[in-house]
Each structure stands twice: as C-alpha cells, then as structure tokens.
C-alpha cells in the first residue's frame, strides 16, 4: 500500500483478479496501450532497426580495427571481447526498454508532480513507473546483442551445452536488474535534491567501462566496478564464465547476488524517497 507523506492511504475495494495474475493483466494492459500508440508510426520502427544496426556496427568496427594491431587485450582474444560486448548489449537493451520512466523521473514525476497520479492508483508506484516508461524499440538492442552473442561464441569456439541458454537468460535479467537498480537509486536523489545533480549522466558514461575485461583497470576502478557500481557483473564476469568456466564460473554466478543486492538497495532508497514525497500542490 502506498504511503503518502508518512501516512498510509485508506484501503480501497479490490476488483478483478489478485496476486500474480493481477500484475500480468496490468502489464498486458499497459503494453497493449503502448503498442496501439506506437503502431500509428510504423515507419519509425524500420528506421529504428536501421539506426540500431548501424550503431552496433560502429562499436564493433572500433574493436575490429583495434584487434588488427594486437592479438589479445589483457589475455582476451577478439571474439572473447565481442562476447563481453554482446552481454552488455543484452542487459542494457532489456534495462533500457523499461527504464524510460527512470531517465526523466525528477523532471516529470517530481517537478511536475506526476507522481501523485501513480500514488492514487491501486498498484505499486514503482511497478507503474517502469511500465509507463516501456519503450519496445530499445528491445531491438536485445535482439542485436543476441545475434552478436551467438556469432561471437561461434568465433570463440565455445561449444553450446544445455545449461548455457537458461544461464544466459538469467545473466541478462541480472544485468538489467543491476542497471535499473543503480539508475533507480541515483534518480531517487530527486526526492531530496531540487534540480539536476549531474551524477546520472556521469554514471551513465561509466557504464561503457563494463564492456571490457575489468582486469585492464587499476585497482580502485576494479573494486568500484565490482562492488559499488557492479557493472563488471553485467558483461565481463558472465562472459568470462562462459569462455573460461574453470576460472570464472563462480564469479559469473556472483552476478545473481550482485543483482539482488543492487535491487535491494534501490528498493530501499525508493521507499525512503517516497516517504519524503509531498507533491507539488498542483
């Protein structure tokens, strides 16, 4: 139940199904509404695909040119680094396709007071926030990541086993949870501070560090990206676990507790922030 300014909102009469079925129904309703508005602009989708393919090609070109001069990067070959890149894209794509509400949160929900609307509705506000920000075009990045992953694993001569597909799906979700958790926790600063702090874009830029073997960084950065902003668990550790399971499988599985911890911290910050929210009076 939503808490407004420290008080609990009086209970309401629940209609329709309860439990998980209720949330599935709500998700379907939100997505249906989203698709209806998007299908008005079908040409958008094609140019979205094209610009996505193009952007990926540019990033891969950088790596390809780099590896024409050296055989390995900190002991990892070109296909190995492509696998890391692919994991990054998978998780980023999944996170980005439902983080639209997070990027403009301070501006839209706090300054303009739209959070009032979410709080008045009989569903958890965070659930609504994520669903309102759904952008399925970003889901193209997941598709791109998957194509690159399959191709890079083939090039890296990794043999598929039965446990890989479910584990890759799990890692993708864990990575997305890490991204969403970190940025949700940061965006909650809007509950305490007026105006932009500039921390979000800064951390956004550091995410790219997660695409490369974390061993290339100095000691402090390695600790930072493993424990404080655990972006290394999004791409490097899962990829390393696939490529060199004997050395890295434990680290790769560490992505799950890392994601859980990030989500827990973000959830805590979010509830603390909600308690402070007083609306704009509009």
């Amino acid at each position, binding site marked *: 139940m939503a808490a407004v300014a420290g008080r609990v909102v009086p209970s309401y009469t629940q209609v329709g199904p309860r439990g998980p079925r209720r949330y599935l129904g709500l998700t379907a309703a939100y997505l249906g509404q989203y698709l209806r508005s998007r299908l008005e602009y079908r040409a958008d989708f094609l140019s979205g695909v094209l610009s996505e393919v193009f952007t990926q090609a*540019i990033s891969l070109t950088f790596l390809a*040119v780099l590896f024409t001069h050296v055989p390995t990067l900190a002991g990892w070959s070109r296909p190995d680094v492509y696998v890391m890149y692919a994991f990054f894209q998978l998780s980023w794509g999944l996170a980005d396709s439902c983080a639209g509400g997070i990027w403009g949160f301070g501006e839209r929900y706090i300054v303009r007071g739209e959070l009032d609307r979410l709080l008045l509705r009989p569903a958890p506000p965070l659930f609504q926030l994520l669903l309102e920000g759904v952008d399925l075009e970003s889901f193209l990045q997941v598709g791109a990541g998957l194509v690159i992953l399959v191709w890079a694993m083939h090039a890296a001569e990794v043999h598929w086993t039965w446990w890989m597909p479910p584990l890759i799906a799990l890692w993708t979700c864990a990575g997305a949870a890490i991204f969403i958790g970190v940025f949700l926790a940061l965006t909650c600063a809007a509950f305490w501070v007026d105006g932009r702090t500039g921390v979000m874009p800064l951390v956004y830029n550091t995410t790219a560090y997660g695409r490369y073997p974390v061993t290339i960084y100095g000691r402090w950065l390695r600790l930072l990206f493993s424990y404080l902003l655990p972006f290394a668990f999004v791409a490097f550790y899962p990829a390393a676990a696939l490529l060199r399971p004997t050395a890295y499988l434990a680290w790769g599985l560490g992505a799950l507790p890392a994601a859980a911890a990030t989500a827990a911290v973000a959830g805590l910050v979010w509830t603390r922030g909600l308690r402070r929210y007083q609306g704009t009076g509009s």
Partner: protein
Amino acid sequence: MAVFWAMARLRFLTMLAYRLNYWSGVLTYTVYIGGYYYIWRAVYAGRPSVAGMSIGGMVTYLAVAWMTRAFTYNNLDGDIEEEVRSGLVAIQLLRPYPYVVGKLWSAGGEAVFRLAFWMLPGMLVAALLFPVHLPTHPLTYAVWVASAACAFLVNAQLNTAFGLFAFSLQNARGIRWAKTRLVDLLSGVYLPLGFFPAAAQRVMSWLPFRDIAYVPAAIFTGTIPPAQAAAAVAGQLAWVGGMAVVVAVFWRRLRRVLLVQGG
C-alpha cells in the same frame, strides 16, 4: 554584425546560467578519456609502439582529440530539426538575418563557453591524471589553435546540414545518435586514423570528418609533422568552404519544401 555578436553572447550566457555546466563537462570528458586510456594501456602492455605510435603519444592524442570534441561539439542538428518540425522556424524566418548564420553564431557562443570551462580545464586535468606529453615548440600551439577553430566550423556546418536534412526522417533521435557515433569514429576520437586499414584511410582522406578532431590532435602530438601542418589546415579550410556550400544547398531545398501550418 551586432546581431550575431548578441546571439553568440546570449548562448554563452545561457550555458553560464546552469551551474551544473561548470564542472560536469570536465568530469564527463575525463571519464571518456579514462576509458580509452585503460583500453590502450592494455593494448600497449609490453610493446614500445603500435602502428608507429608510443603509449605517450597515444594518450596525448586521445586527450587532445576528446578535448577538441568537447570544444567543437554542439546540438545544432537537434535544435534545427526540432524548430523545423515544430514550425518554430517560421518565426525565425521573419527575423532580418539569415537563419543558418544565426545558428552558427550561437554555436560559436557555446564553443567559447566549452573552451573556457570544459576544454582548457579538461586538458589540465588530463595532463595531471594521464601521462600526456606537451609539445615544446610555441608555433605548434599556434597552428593547433587555428586547426581547432577550423574543426569547430566544419563540425558546426556539418551539424547544420544534417539538421536541415534530417527533419523529414522518421525516428530522427535514433538516427542522430547513430550519426554522432559515426562522426566520433571517423573523426578519430576512438582511435587515430592511422590505425585504420590503408584503403579505409584513403577514403577518409576525401571526407570532412578527419578535420573535426583528428587533424588538430595529430598536429598537437606531431603525428602530422610541422612541415605538413600548414597543408593540413589548408585542407580543413577547404572543407569549411565545402560545407558552407552544402549548407546553402540544403537550406534552399528546405525553404522550397517547407510548409508551416498556422503558427
């Protein structure tokens, strides 16, 4: 002329109004440079030189290339697209000066802010954090300043042309994003153009992108030797003129097809 100075000044003051702008630029570009510094440090591990470049030369190149980008970067393409799409451009057209020239001057105002608050402090920070080698000859600095100014003019006009062209496309945001990445790659901020295969380099020597970051950075690091620096700047000047022609052509086409409803 006074009008244009006023536009540049206004844009400068707008940038100045957001206190966040004072330090966010230096931090952002330090993060960019840092990312590439660590990648290249790993590439150079145990090698004295790669493609004829030492690690010191490479780090200096990256710092100067990114800082040149910090100086020349602007959002003219997005601004113009937005104004054309929303019809705001109709009001701009009523004003007694050429629309695109006004845009260029306001971008100039932004560039002065970026120079003073982002580029110069950023170079200082980069020189403290990373092993950057500074050139010893004063003339190198003079040529580099001229080259950076040309880089700004090429980039600003490229963005103007792109904005005038892209307003009619769907999903302009995605395409603009892809375009920014492409310009970064081809202008040499990810890696010096000398690292590309020979055939690609030949193609790139005919394109304007190298003039946006590669040429000033290469002059600064001596990758383009002082004897050839003047010719490189002349090449940039040629593209300043070339892009002006492109902008003029796109502008005429836009005025022919533009139809603003109401307003």
